[in-house]
């Protein structure tokens, strides 16, 4: 199977460049691999970018600069101050605006010839196919598993290549999922991590420049799919570690047993991806007793004897310490379970109340008999409801 892909854009759609476009794209026209014909293909191309965040920002900026004809932007979010550390398409003055509106303004000021179509909505099984089918290629700038599986399946059904990127802290992954040229995302990861088991990203942090690098790789792959003749990441998974500044290339293959792109697919239409990813389920595990921040405060004020276990990482505790909390990072709970006193109620605290929930379930599974409480919504709720002087980081 050749890795060299033909252009996604048929001859029939190509139109001439005007003088202004000739000047603007001269550095492309000088490249034999692009040239006039390649630039016409870019002009005729339609790219959907899903997510206008860390990955979508550089993707959209470089595709707009490169002369892609139509860019669709799908995002339901608004710009927050904490986004500006990495989502360089948005600026301080855009805070609280819809991300797609902010991104559209920036792209249009960069390249007035560009046509931008905005979708200020969440992609769902109901709307995805009708939106995706208008585009030649889809770039995945999402930050969550339900949308990622939705995009994968929709792209398989529509026969659209999916330019994949994903990030975590200092590590990124990139690939191209294209039918006939390699696997899809599900070949690689048939099912997502359950919410409790997935390394929680909202609590994890990310180096701001990392999505910049991965997003630029996605932009390069998107442009190559449009131009044709290049060797893309189809059939290869690129891993990047910004801390070690190391790239690793892995070979990935289509799984004949894949439920969507395999020989006998069992998934032939879009499904409920929130459910598939274990979200919005009443029960994703055994029930856990919880305390709200105010209830915990009341018990502390009463002088109840409690073991307060702060399972955040040391660098998080450095932001602020919880008074009377005993530090025991999430990843050490099972190994150190003998340190707990089963005769005293234990309250587990973390940032948003997710890791603590999982810590409690793990401890139960490991046979711990004492009573365990989860601080509901974590220290963010404590900062909100009990001690507003604390930062919500």
């Amino acid at each position, binding site marked *: 199977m050749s890795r060299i892909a033909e252009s996604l854009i048929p001859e029939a759609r190509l139109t001439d460049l005007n003088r202004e476009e000739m000047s603007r794209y001269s550095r492309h026209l000088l490249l034999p691999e692009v040239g006039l014909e390649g630039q016409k293909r870019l002009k005729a191309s339609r790219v959907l970018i899903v997510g206008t965040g860390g990955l979508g920002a550089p993707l959209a900026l470089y595709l707009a600069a490169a002369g892609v004809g139509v860019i669709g932007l799908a995002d339901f979010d608004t710009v927050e101050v904490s986004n500006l550390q990495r989502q360089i398409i948005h600026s301080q003055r855009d805070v609280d605006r819809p991300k797609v509106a902010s991104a559209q303004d920036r792209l249009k000021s960069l390249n007035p010839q560009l046509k931008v179509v905005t979708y200020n909505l969440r992609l769902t099984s109901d709307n995805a196919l009708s939106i995706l089918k208008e585009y030649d290629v889809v770039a995945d700038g999402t930050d969550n598993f339900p949308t990622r599986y939705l995009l994968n399946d929709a792209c398989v059904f529509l026969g659209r290549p999916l330019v994949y990127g*994903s990030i975590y*802290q200092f*590590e990124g992954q990139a690939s191209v999922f294209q039918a006939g040229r390699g696997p899809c995302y599900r070949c690689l990861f048939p*099912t997502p991590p359950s919410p409790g088991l997935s390394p*929680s*990203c909202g609590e994890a942090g990310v180096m701001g420049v990392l999505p910049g690098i991965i997003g630029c790789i996605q932009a390069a792959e998107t442009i190559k799919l449009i131009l044709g003749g290049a060797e893309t990441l189809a059939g290869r998974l690129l891993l990047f570690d910004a801390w070690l500044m190391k790239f690793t290339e892995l070979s990935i293959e289509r799984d004949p047993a894949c439920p969507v792109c395999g020989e006998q697919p069992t998934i032939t239409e879009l499904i409920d991806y929130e459910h598939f990813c274990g979200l919005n389920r009443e029960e994703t595990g055994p029930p856990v007793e919880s305390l709200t921040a105010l209830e915990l405060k009341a018990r502390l004020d009463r002088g109840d004897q409690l073991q307060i276990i702060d399972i955040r990482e040391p660098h998080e505790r450095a932001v602020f310490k919880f008074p009377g909390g005993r530090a025991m990072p999430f*990843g*050490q709970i099972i190994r150190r379970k003998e340190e707990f006193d089963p005769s005293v109620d234990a309250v587990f605290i973390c940032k948003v109340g997710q890791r603590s929930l999982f810590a409690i379930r793990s401890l139960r599974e490991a046979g711990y008999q004492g009573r365990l409480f989860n601080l509901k919504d974590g220290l963010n709720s404590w900062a909100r409801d009990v001690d507003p002087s604390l930062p919500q980081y």
Partner: protein
Amino acid sequence: MITVLIPTALRSFTERQGAVQLEAGTVGQAVAALAENYPDLKQHLYDDQGQLRSFVNLFVGGRNVKTLEGLATPLAEGETLTLVPAIAGGRDA
């Protein structure tokens, strides 16, 4: 000795170690030894039935062990086993 490369997403369960050296002749032995050495990691590698979870892929010599001999894939002295998890990052949730 072989080396297991631990992705960032799982390092909080390996005392922040990015690379772990251990004795193993096959991929299955390596994963079992890893779970043994780091009990907090075990539930992220195996499900309740003791099956390897499908959101972590194992690569040896740049190839997915699914396309080799699975857990029976032999590991030569000095070889590297790379764990590649499904990741999704960015949003403050």
